[in-house]
């Protein structure tokens, strides 16, 4: 019995540690100043997928990502941690995609994989914070969804049970396979790299990477087919071009603005007793406190 688990992952700029040089003078984002990282909640999702793999007989975990050639980095990273392989969906036709066009492209790629049992992804990516791609992929594939997952509690060939963490509580739900599960950051952290797997997959590469490297590793990839990361372009997936990229994106960006706040005239104080006491007296006198 095969049981195919697919993890949807995204390589994102690290928006959490934005320094002053991250924004250019004209208010646009200086992407070069931001390191590219594995989207944090997708790592939580990978961990759930790897745990599932150890529970369900015959299960495999593959990572699917859409992005530029360098996004293969996160597929390798996944393999170092226990994934069996991955797919990179890449091409300029996908550029400018909003969440809906992205979901359509990912759904086309998943359909090409044949029977998929569980799709796991992070709830949202830190560069957009939309939490839309998971549910939209599910809709495109006609699959049900369980969002805000904290833990996959149980899974059989036909049924999955999941604990959800919501704003004001928890819920335990179960539903049929195939299923899309989106995972919260409250879920357990992803396991670290495994030393043996890191050695084993160090040379894992996409076709583009192999060509760019120029070195003649042909034998290596023939002998070790698991080192090939599948790379798909637009012609590898069955698609309707009008649903991809800019034309497939109903949302348009009208305007981007740098955030500017109106500065106030501040009163500067030091921490000495007298100044703090005066401030507290003033706040009491004008009924701000007390």
């Amino acid at each position, binding site marked *: 019995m095969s049981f195919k688990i697919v993890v949807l992952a995204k390589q994102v700029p690290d*928006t*959490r540690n*934005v320094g002053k040089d*991250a*924004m250019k003078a004209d*208010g646009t*984002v200086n992407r070069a100043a931001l390191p590219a990282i594995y989207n944090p909640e997708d790592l939580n999702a990978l961990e759930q997928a790897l745990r599932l793999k150890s529970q369900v007989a015959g299960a495999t975990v593959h990572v699917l990502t859409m992005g530029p050639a360098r996004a293969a980095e996160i597929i390798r990273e996944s393999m170092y941690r226990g994934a069996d392989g991955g797919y990179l969906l890449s091409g300029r036709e996908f550029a400018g995609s*909003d*969440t*809906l066009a992205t*979901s359509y492209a990912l759904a086309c790629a998943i359909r090409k994989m044949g029977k998929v049992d569980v799709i796991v992804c992070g709830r949202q990516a830190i*560069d*957009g*914070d*939309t*939490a*839309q791609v*998971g*549910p*939209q992929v599910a*809709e495109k594939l006609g699959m*049900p*969804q369980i*969002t*805000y997952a904290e833990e996959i509690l149980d899974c059989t060939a036909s049924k999955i049970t999941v604990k959800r963490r919501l*704003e004001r*509580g*928890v*819920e*335990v*739900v179960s*539903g*049929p396979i195939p299923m899309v599960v989106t995972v919260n950051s409250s879920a357990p952290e992803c396991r670290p790299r495994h030393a043996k797997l890191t050695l084993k997959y160090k040379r894992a590469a996409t076709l583009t990477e192999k060509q760019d490297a120029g070195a003649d590793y042909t034998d290596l990839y023939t002998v070790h087919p698991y080192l090939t990361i599948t790379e798909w372009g637009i012609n590898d997936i069955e698609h309707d071009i009008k649903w991809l990229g800019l034309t497939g994106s*109903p*949302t*348009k*960006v*009208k*305007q*981007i*603005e*740098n*955030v500017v*706040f109106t*500065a*106030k005239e*501040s*009163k*500067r*104080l030091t*921490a000495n*007793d007298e100044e*703090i*006491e005066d*401030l*507290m*007296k003033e706040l*009491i006198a004008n009924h*701000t*406190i007390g």
Partner: protein
Amino acid sequence: MNNLFVYLEIEDGIVGDVSLELLTKGRTLADQLKCKLEAVAAGYKLDKIGEQVFPFGVDTLYLADDKRLAPYTTLPHTSLLVNLFKEEKPQIAFMGATSIGRDLGPRVSSALFSGLTADCTSLEIGTYEDKKAGKVYDNLLYQIRPAFGGNIVATIVNPDCRPQMATVREGVMKKEIRNAKHVGKTVIMDVAKYVPDTDFVIEVIERHMEKSKLNIKGSPIIVSGGYGVGSADNFKLLFELAATLGAEVGASRAAVDAGFADHERQIGQTGTTVRPKLYIACGISGQIQHIAGMQESAMIIAINNDPKAPINAIADYVITGSIEEVLPKMIKFYKKNSK
């Protein structure tokens, strides 16, 4: 036809604040667009919903009352909205940016191929010119939201697809009764006509919902801490000051990420938006995404070691000093002078 719809979130027969806030905003925009404000309630035992929402100016309330629709599960609520929207062709649809709205919204938008913008902080009506196509669109919904970790603000439009969909977090919009005596029209939906039986595939086995113990949004004074507080232990100083002043404790995203404070205390674009009488920012440098969630506070005191912290620019009082030194003094001098 072509009206403005709000999906109502309901827990135990009570309409959530986030939905009432959206109705308030929706009413204003509907007036501007000269269209109707319509609301959809899906759940069980909904007889008390009308009296809760009509005062907010709802013209039409759609009720889908069915035991199977509560608690919320994705597919039935999706089918209900998708099929209703196909009939009614709303121009705009709003949902809360909650675990329900953010589960339902993308699914509905995907099924209808309509654009959805998550976590909007402002919604306006305006024109849009598509220079390439040489087309001008009037009366579009401007969906304004922070992007890129809050470093930029983007205005998103959906020129061609309907409905124009947006989610908004609780507390971002104001809640305001329009007319306490207003009663609109109620339409009882035939659920079986909108929702196929095959949608009921998710079984809710267990459910524990707590009423939030915190009331950060409603607190007149907030003592808030950032990464600069240094540790969860140092946060105790903030709790002491808050207890002394009768305040609530808030936190920046960085402090929450570092584990100094619980997620539900987070203030900012990805947390709660607050407008207290007094906001005391302790060890908060003032990332844009935080400032956006508290800048409307009537008075802001910033306590920071760094005299150049960005938050100082919007503060009424800037105290340069350490939390460990300043907070105990505030407690001491408040107690000394408050009697």
